[in-house]
């Protein structure tokens, strides 16, 4: 691994983001090649987090554009502050000033509402991190527009002229894959798929993010989550849920997992009514009773056997 990648990895770890080599390498290449990164993965695996951590680590501004169906250029790029312009015109009505001068005044910077994309290219001090979140939710038309911005990093405002980026922003796009993005957008980006974490990674995340948690509880929680993700649920819990749960256990001063408390706190990480009903009772017992004394090297075997038993149990319900 070369120095640059290690540096980024350290940087992200310092910001309490448990990373792995794939993430660090992609982030490094994106910075070096000045290419946007497209991050895909299930909900709750920390896609958005990467952009936030990058911004903190680089000590720069994070600009976030949340996408949704119907997101348009006005909301994403810029808009004239119409009410303010109207007021100005009204105020100027009595004065007999030159019309062209008036016009250039009301179409100046102070009447411009800068939206995320414009802000991202008009930073004068250093390159910001631009997070375009859940880009799959925006329409195809918007995607096409985005493509244009991402290739030129400049915007033409008819009344003001062309604004081009002094510092090219670091661009991070995330997608939950509710639809396939266009090939054109994909090929403009480096691609990173983030899966649910492995046991080791999840354990590290829990110990890092939940200070004061004891080793045994952290291990048990990580094991539990590894197994539960193998069960077919409507909403598979992500890392965010793992952390919520660990926090909940800490708040209840629990030292280890016991059936009663797990059953009570199930709602903090299983967020679908049917799933809760599916798991409560016997399935939880199966998991918790077999969990003790499982060593590191038996972990995969345990996960396999316990998910088989779980599937059987869940299927009969």
């Amino acid at each position, binding site marked *: *691994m070369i120095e640059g990648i290690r540096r980024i990895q350290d940087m992200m770890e310092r910001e309490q983001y448990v990373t792995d080599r794939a993430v660090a390498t992609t982030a490094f*290449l994106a910075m070096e090649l000045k290419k946007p990164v497209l991050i*895909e993965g299930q909900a709750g695996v920390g896609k958005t987090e990467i952009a936030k951590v990058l911004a903190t680590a680089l000590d720069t501004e994070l600009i976030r554009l949340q996408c949704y169906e*119907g997101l348009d250029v006005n909301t994403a790029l810029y808009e004239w502050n119409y009410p303010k312009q109207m007021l100005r015109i009204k105020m100027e009505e009595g004065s007999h000033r030159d019309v062209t001068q008036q016009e250039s005044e009301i179409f100046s910077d102070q009447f411009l509402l800068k939206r995320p994309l414009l802000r991202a290219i008009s930073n004068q001090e250093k390159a910001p991190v631009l997070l375009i979140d859940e880009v799959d939710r925006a329409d*195809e038309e918007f995607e096409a527009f985005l493509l244009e911005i991402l290739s030129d990093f400049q915007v033409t405002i008819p009344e003001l002229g062309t604004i081009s980026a002094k510092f090219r922003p670091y661009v991070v796009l995330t997608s939950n894959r509710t639809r396939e993005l266009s090939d054109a957008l*994909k090929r403009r980006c480096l691609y990173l798929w983030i899966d649910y974490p492995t046991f080791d990674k999840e354990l590290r995340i829990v110990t890092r993010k939940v200070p004061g948690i004891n080793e045994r509880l952290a291990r048990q929680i990580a094991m539990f989550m590894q197994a539960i993700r193998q069960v077919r649920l409507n909403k598979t819990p992500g890392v965010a849920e793992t952390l919520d749960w660990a926090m909940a256990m800490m708040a209840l001063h629990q030292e280890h997992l016991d059936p009663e408390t797990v059953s009570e706190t199930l709602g903090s990480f299983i967020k679908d009514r049917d799933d809760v009903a599916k798991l409560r009772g016997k399935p939880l017992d199966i998991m918790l009773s077999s969990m003790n004394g499982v060593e590191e090297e038996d972990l995969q075997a345990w996960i396999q056997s316990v998910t088989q038993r779980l599937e059987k149990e869940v299927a009969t319900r």
Partner: protein
Amino acid sequence: MDSVGDAAAREGSRYALKSRAKHADLQRHVMAFGRELRARELLSTSSEIVDSLRCMEMVDVADRGDVYLGMRSVFVSRPEDVPIFDEVFNQFWRNIARIDEIDETANNDDMSPDDQAGDQMEEGGEGQEQLQLSSPDGDGGEGDEEGDEEALPLYSPVEMLASKDFSRFQADEMQEIARAVLVIAKRLATRESRRVRVSTKGHQIDPRRTMRRNMKYGGTILELARRRRKIRKPKLVLICDVSRSMDTYSRFLLQFIHALQNTIGRVESFVFSTTLTRVTDYFRHEEILEALDRIAREVHDWSGGTRIGQSLTTFNAQYAKQLVTRNSIVLILSDGLDTGDAEILRLAMEEIEERAGKVIWLNPLLGSKDYRPLARGMSTALEHVDVFAPAHNLSSLEDLGRHLVVRR
């Protein structure tokens, strides 16, 4: 880093170490590698090759992890690509490694592996000609027995119960149907696009409401009223039965799917008989005849038996979460003659109904007067279907248009 890539990366590093000295080799190898990926349907054109070469300049090409991860971030563009990438990566760099080994044993009998590696660097790419074996446009795969054995498996032949040759269909007949289907699909699409125009107007100011709203300010316009988009375009998910019992219709229906996808966009398509295959990409750019030909060749067990329940369960497990929302219409084209478990089908349909805005089942048998949906599979499925319609001729497809709206 993940375990799949690890082995692949290790192979890469052997090669990488040597090519550090020879950038031209790297370039050639990456190009051949890119071609191979393209043959496997990954997004790999000259721009990706340029990008990956730029990546290689940035990372340590002697490091297995760097090479693998760098290339992966360029060539892979969706999670399904990863296993294919790993396989090709593994295969490709192993071939090169093996060629190197042959050279090494031929040239340096007594040297330690480390020395050999160093030596190889100076000798450069003697393996060049042989490398071509692994690229698709190389001059044949002669000589390399091991390579034959491990040749890239295009698609597993195990489930290929029957492979049909579409070229036997009469061309003129095909053309005529294709034309008719295209007309219908276009008609459906324009209906769609009228609504699109309304929705893009939604970004604009509504003068009438603006005036009315600003009456209270004595006619000074302070608040702007805008039009909002009201109707959302539905997404279509087509799932077509290509089992033996559907033979007479499936060809016809697939053409319809093809035409629909190429005029409307926002269409995802699948075919199934005993297993489910996503065919959206097959239909995306290609000529209809080519697409059909390729599907017949590559889809497992074309014209085999039917397991609707199983196939729909697969659909739910792998795709539904991503592709089906309340704004989607799921269109199933099947005769409902299932040989599988009716309970599985019921559960699968239940889940689809829950996710989708609308479920339409097109059944060609419905065209005959005597047909009653009594087949076990069909009658269970019907409980979870919003529209049950025939699909045996052109006019029944045309009627489909009025169902293609999600009501809220």
